[in-house]
Each structure stands twice: as structure tokens, then as C-alpha cells.
């Protein structure tokens, strides 16, 4: 008996130039906001972009983007709907507002299922909004998606950075590229996270401020892209992520 689904994942991503997993060891550091704003910014800059919310038990990118009642179209697979030109895939199309309490094996199955039936077609970049930690989703991406690179988000907290260290060690062990570390919610002038990041041999991409206007911009894509958070992130993208 063979699970046939994983045999087509490489083919489904054959026309995706770049896959970037926005990841962190801890929850609550702003991964989803960075991932969604990054995807929107790249799309606004004219690139063909997809965003895949892999945080199955705590999806939130749909709220940031305000995707409303959108659903994938069914045509020889699932075609992700577009939000301002950005292709977006999420478990919420099927779980709605209800909880999806999944164990590891179920998370893996859902990930493999959606990767095997979602037709992203031609993309310059697919951004993955990862769940926190280095569990099933990270291991499955490492197993099935190549080429793949990671963009790691932390806060100025040593607690968050401690988990970043573990993630960096894992990714280096398996030889997966790390674009760099973004320090989110920065409130004070300090070089500590930059120093710690560089001591791991990883690029410090920059800091995003603790932006009090961000909460009001959730669900309003135009307003979101005008926030200080988004403008700073766009600067980091210009310097580090453009092809």
C-alpha cells in the first residue's frame, strides 16, 4: 500500500520560482503578520505571489487579509482564490470559524493533501505562514518542498530567540537556506538580537517596530500596507528578497 499523494507535490510546485517559509520557534511573534504583509507587498510590487497558511490549528492570515467568503475553484484540482492578485490557500475554507483540533498525523495528512491538490501554477514566490515550532509542518516542508528557504521571525525577547537558535541549528544541519532573521515588535534601541543572530552565522535582516496602529489595520489591506510596520518590512524586502 502506497500513499500516492506525495508523488505529485514537486510537480505542483514546478512553476513556483521560490518558496519562503515564514517561521519561528515561538507563537505570538508576528509570523502571520509578517507573512501576509510580505505576500501583499510582493504582490503589490508586481510579482506573482501565493500565500499558504499552514497554521492549521491557529489560522489567522485570512483575518489579516479579510478574505470574506472566498473559496477555491475546483478545476482538475483546487485553484486558490485571489485577494488583490495574491493567491491564498487556508484550511479555513473547509473548517470555517470552527476549531480544527489536529494531532501530528492529521496535520501531516492535511499538509500533504493540500500540497497535492492545490494548483498554484506560475508564481514568482510562494510564502508559507508556518505554525510555531519545529514540528510536523517544518519537517514535512523539509521532506517535500525543494527548493525551500526560511525567513525567521523573532521578538527582542531572549525567550523567543532561544527557540530561534534551535530552529537555526536544525535548518543548518539539513542544509536548508535561511534568508535571515527579522526582529519584530522592537521597542528599544538595542543590538542584542542582531549580535545573537550574527553569532549564529545568520543574516540579521532588520527590525520592525511595535506599531500601535497595526491592530486597527487588520482586515484592511490598503491600511495595512500604509502602516509603519509594512513600510519597514517593505524596506527589508527591497534589500534582501528581490530577485
Amino acid at each position, binding site marked *: 500500500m502506497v500513499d500516492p499523494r506525495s508523488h505529485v507535490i514537486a510537480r505542483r510546485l514546478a512553476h513556483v520560482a521560490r518558496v519562503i517559509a515564514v517561521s519561528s520557534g515561538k507563537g505570538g511573534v508576528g509570523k502571520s503578520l509578517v507573512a501576509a504583509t510580505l505576500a501583499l507587498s510582493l504582490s503589490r510590487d508586481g510579482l506573482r505571489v501565493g500565500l499558504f497558511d499552514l497554521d*492549521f490549528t491557529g489560522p489567522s492570515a485570512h483575518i489579516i487579509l479579510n478574505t470574506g467568503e472566498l473559496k477555491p475553484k475546483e478545476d482538475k484540482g*483546487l485553484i486558490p482564490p485571489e485577494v488583490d492578485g495574491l493567491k491564498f490557500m487556508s484550511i479555513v475554507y473547509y473548517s470555517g470559524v470552527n476549531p480544527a483540533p489536529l494531532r501530528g498525523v*492529521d496535520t501531516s495528512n492535511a499538509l500533504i493533501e493540500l500540497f497535492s491538490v492545490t494548483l498554484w501554477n506560475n508564481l514568482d514566490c510562494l510564502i508559507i505562514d508556518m505554525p510555531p515550532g519545529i514540528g510536523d509542518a517544518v519537517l514535512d516542508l523539509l521532506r517535500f518542498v525543494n527548493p525551500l528557504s526560511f525567513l525567521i521571525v523573532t521578538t527582542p525577547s531572549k525567550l523567543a530567540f532561544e527557540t530561534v537558535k534551535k530552529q537555526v541549528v536544525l535548518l543548518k544541519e539539513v542544509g536548508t537556506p535561511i534568508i535571515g532573521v527579522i526582529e519584530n515588535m522592537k521597542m528599544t534601541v538595542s543590538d542584542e538580537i542582531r549580535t545573537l543572530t550574527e553569532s549564529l552565522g545568520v543574516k540579521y535582516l532588520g527590525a520592525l517596530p511595535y506599531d500601535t496602529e497595526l491592530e486597527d489595520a487588520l482586515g484592511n489591506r490598503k491600511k495595512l500596507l500604509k502602516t509603519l510596520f509594512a513600510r519597514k518590512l517593505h524596506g527589508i524586502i527591497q534589500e534582501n528578497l528581490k530577485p
Partner: protein
Amino acid sequence: MHEWALAETVIAAASSIAAEQGFSRITEVTVRVGQLQQVERGILRFALLQLKPAGFENTRFRIISAKTKLKCRVCGYEWLFQKRRLSPDVAEAIHFLPEVAHTYIKCPRCGSPDFEVIQGRGIWLETVKGVK
């Protein structure tokens, strides 16, 4: 035609197995489909016949339906999945992503969503037969 994408997975996996086994012609492919995913067997068969590549010209596709057996991790109760108990919207959601069964189905005895799909989740490639 979500089944089309699933048929592509079967052809890709069967082709890979046939290459490993050194088959020049594939005579029979057996696919098991779990009831939880509610795959339309007619559409799946049609897609398989449309997709078949070189070496599959005379392949017989056998599609076997498997009952879905669920087991509660909390109280140990075992039961069979029954589509007729679901609303059309919920059945469709589970068709596209079987794992959302954990969103909509609870253990009939204790009400827990923490159950295991013991058998019959979705699509499996059972056997690939061919000649060298």
C-alpha cells in the same frame, strides 16, 4: 473535478513503482478509496483513463471502496463514518480536506473530537501489476 488531481497522484505513484519494478507495460492498478473523502469513483476512473501515459494503454484500473472506521482516543469507542449524517456543506468540506472531520464529527459515546481514522481516510495505491 478535484478527483482529477487525485487521479494524477495515482498515475504518478504507479509510474514510479512501475519504473522501480522495471515494468514495460502495466496490466493492473488497484486503488483503494476511503469513504471519508467521498471520492466519486466514476469521475476518478474517467480521470485515470484520460491521464494514462505510455505503458498504461491496456491497464485495468480497479477501484475498491473502503469503509471508514473511526476510534475515539478518549473512550476507545469505535464507529463507522456515515455521510448521510452530515449536512451537504460539511460533507463537501470533508471531501476536499478529510482532516476537517475533526472539526465536524465527534465521538458518538463521549463527544470528543479526538479520534483516530483507523481505516478509510482517502486514496491509497494498493497494487501495481505489470510485465517486464
